């Protein structure tokens, strides 16, 4: 079986894929479980991520119920003890960032889209790709196991500050905290492998004719995110091993009694932790940048500006980490430096938002389901962005640090990223992934049923934060200033909104599975889009393209006045122009 691409790519060290291409009849196991196909691996990441999202969402339900109705027996969970509460909030955060946002936004979309959008038949290192997923799956299993061991899962917050996380006598979860650290370290290893693949593939496997400035923004963003991840994660992997040693073999890296320093961990953690925000943000912005031009029929405004602002954000993101530590006991003079860098990072990010808003000007906007998600990303992320300024400014952070204001702020950034961005991408590329269209009406019901309750959850939490309510507290009945009926009403309101939002997710799950078999057949290019994935069949087979595409232009040539059609796919040569 001679895929043209196999020959074309052989010089790029593609021997693995070549070997696998000779398996004509693939068994269920080799096709879906031990697959080296980038699309299947992408699906594996996506389904694992969605499964973890259900667990993370359920955890949120359990602890929000405790906050709204302290001491009640939560349906489906039971009484929430303080230890359980801490474990629930810790692992809600851990799961949503490391096991939902990362695998779905970067690994699932990255794996599925990068080879298709670059016009090649697979990743450069397909087996490394498979190993990456397998290690990721192992990390998920280790994390899930940590919830059921004796004394329960780790409850020292997702930031795992020692000495609490380093000593069982403090955390009271000897096994849970060790498994938590191991799971996180394994997860990083998995993404390092994935990242190597993404970067190498973008550099080496582009379709003939595709220059660097012809690469779709989402591919750029996923690759930039992978680079940021690779550059930032090293210190944290080292830190995780040091923490593991402190827990298990009695070293004292973070133990002041033996010359260690707990604040060292905070530096290692946040040196990774803040770039990590942009690691998941950039792919989500990339997804939005793909969807908006298609449904506005507009060329993306200032393509290069988007990329340059992303580069600037990436570089700056390495110099902002200590804004998480303003009041953590670092030298107070340091706060001045980090205030400057943190507030300045608003400039490139604001510019990205301006670019997307400017793209709408003069468009022909169709409010399809993916477009609704993409636009709501902008609307919600702007709120998340501007509330971040209060926290980056050292003076006001003294008050806001570790209050619900912080919590509401980062949910206004992470929810657009990990939920809205994912739904945008999923509804947009669903026809390509499964060959059928999602139901539009159910999609809109799901959209409004998610967006409205989302705001109703977190606006009350902003108000609670302004009133001084601190985070990670199991019950506020012991704090006279926080136990007022007005504040309790806000907590109940947020919890009820959360339950409504979670229920609406059932609409999506139904739509997803119903459309797999009942949806309208999609065809190759249901949106009249330009990028190369729409050249491949829906769903693309093994090897992706029947005929490997050649690229003639950038990805966003919509509504050119010199053409009859309002789109001009990247692979259509200029001679065949209909005008």
């Amino acid at each position, binding site marked *: 079986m001679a895929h043209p691409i196999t020959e074309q790519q052989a010089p790029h060290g593609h021997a693995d894929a070549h070997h696998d291409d000779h398996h004509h009849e693939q068994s269920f196991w080799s096709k879906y479980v031990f697959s080296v196909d980038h699309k299947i691996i992408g699906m594996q990441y996506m389904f694992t991520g969605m499964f973890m999202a259900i667990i993370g969402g359920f955890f949120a339900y359990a602890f929000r119920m405790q906050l709204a109705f302290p001491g009640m027996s939560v349906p489906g969970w039971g009484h929430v003890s*303080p*230890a359980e509460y*801490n474990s629930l909030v810790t692992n809600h955060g851990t799961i949503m960032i490391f096991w939902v946002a990362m695998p779905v936004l970067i690994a699932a979309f990255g794996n599925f889209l990068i080879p298709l959008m670059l016009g090649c038949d697979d990743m450069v290192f397909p087996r490394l790709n498979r190993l990456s997923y397998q290690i990721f799956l192992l990390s998920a299993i280790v994390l899930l196991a940590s919830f059921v061991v004796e004394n329960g899962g780790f*409850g020292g917050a997702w930031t795992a*500050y020692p*000495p*609490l996380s380093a000593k069982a006598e*403090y*955390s009271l979860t000897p096994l849970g905290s060790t498994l938590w650290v191991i799971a996180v370290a394994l997860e990083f290893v998995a993404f390092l492998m994935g990242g190597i693949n993404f970067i190498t593939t973008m550099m080496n496997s582009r379709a003939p004719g595709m220059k660097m400035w012809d690469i779709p923004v989402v591919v750029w963003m996923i690759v930039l995110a992978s680079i940021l991840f690779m550059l930032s994660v090293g210190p944290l992997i080292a830190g995780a091993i040091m923490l593991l040693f402190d827990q298990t073999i009695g070293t004292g890296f973070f133990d*002041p*009694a033996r010359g260690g320093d*707990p604040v060292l961990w905070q530096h290692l953690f946040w040196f990774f932790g803040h770039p990590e925000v942009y690691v998941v943000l950039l792919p989500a912005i990339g997804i939005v940048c793909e969807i908006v031009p298609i449904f506005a029929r*507009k060329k993306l*405004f*200032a*393509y290069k*500006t988007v990329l340059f602002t992303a580069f600037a954000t990436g570089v700056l993101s390495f110099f902002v980490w200590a804004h998480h530590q303003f*009041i*953590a*006991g670092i030298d107070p*003079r340091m*706060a001045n430096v980090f205030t*400057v860098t943190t*507030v300045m990072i608003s*400039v490139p990010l*604001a*510019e990205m938002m*301006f*670019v997307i*808003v*400017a793209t*709408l*000007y*003069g468009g*022909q*906007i*169709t*409010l399809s389901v993916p477009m609704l998600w993409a*636009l709501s990303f902008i609307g919600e992320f702007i709120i998340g962005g*501007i509330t971040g*300024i*209060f926290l980056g*400014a*050292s*003076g006001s952070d003294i*008050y806001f*640090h*570790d209050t619900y204001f912080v919590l509401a702020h980062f949910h206004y950034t992470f929810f657009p990223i990990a939920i809205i961005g994912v739904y945008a991408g999923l509804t947009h590329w669903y026809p390509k992934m499964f060959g059928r269209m999602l139901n539009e009406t159910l999609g809109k019901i799901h959209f409004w049923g998610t967006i409205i309750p989302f705001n109703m959850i977190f606006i009350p939490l902003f108000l609670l934060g*302004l*009133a*001084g309510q*601190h*985070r*990670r*507290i*199991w019950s506020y009945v*012991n*704090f006279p200033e926080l136990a007022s009926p007005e504040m309790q009403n806000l907590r109940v309101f947020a919890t009820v909104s959360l339950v409504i939002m979670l229920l609406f997710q059932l609409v999506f799950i139904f739509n997803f599975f119903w459309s797999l078999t009942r949806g309208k057949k999609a065809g190759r290019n249901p949106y009249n889009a330009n990028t190369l994935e729409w050249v491949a069949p829906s769903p693309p087979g093994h090897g992706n393209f029947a005929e490997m595409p050649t690229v003639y232009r950038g990805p966003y040539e919509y*509504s050119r*006045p010199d053409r009859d059609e309002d789109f001009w796919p990247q692979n259509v040569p200029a001679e065949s122009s209909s005008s």
Partner: protein
Amino acid sequence: MIEKYLVQASTYAADIDNLVSLISWLVGFWGFLVLIVFFGLIINFRRREGQRAAYITGEEKHQKRWITIPHDLVLVCDIIIIVGAINVWYNVKQNLPEADAKVRVIGQQWAWSFQHPGLDGKLDTDDDIRTVDELHVEVGKLYHYKAESRDVLHSFSVPVFRLKQDVIPGRVISGWFEPTQTGTFDIQCAEMCGIGHGLMPARIVIESAAAHKAWMEANTPTSVASAK
């Protein structure tokens, strides 16, 4: 903004609240402006039969102005915010004015303990008054706190003062506050410190000079009191 929810009980509470208001005006302006433009464009440029979208690359100079002018304006706002933030920060955290009295604040799983100077006004003498979960201070006096921890990280947070400081085992962290009104208010622990983190409430009692003296007299350790 915050003063609507919570009284201002320290000399710098108003500074922090004013900074918050300043930032609110600036970012609020930008947020509303962008959202209005954003929704305006969505409504204005809905798909109409038979019409075509404009072809705008955004690469030409007169088009780039749509990005570069807001870019410069955001930069100006950022600089204003940075100057305001550093100003407040310097005053509250970096600068340490002369103290009238000192108190020691000790966090541990899961309680706050406080060491007050006794009637002699000096810390670490025999007449020090030690309490658990209740800090007594005198209004109008400038205090230095010495924050310590016995085990894990905690954070000493007094919302009515707008004050927060993490405490770290192995270190003594100093800072200051000056109460401006009497009353009894919450002290919270603001750093996750284990299963009792939510069960670590303490109170700060701000008293008039007379009331504070009376409290000190009533609570002077019996050994010291009987020796006199």
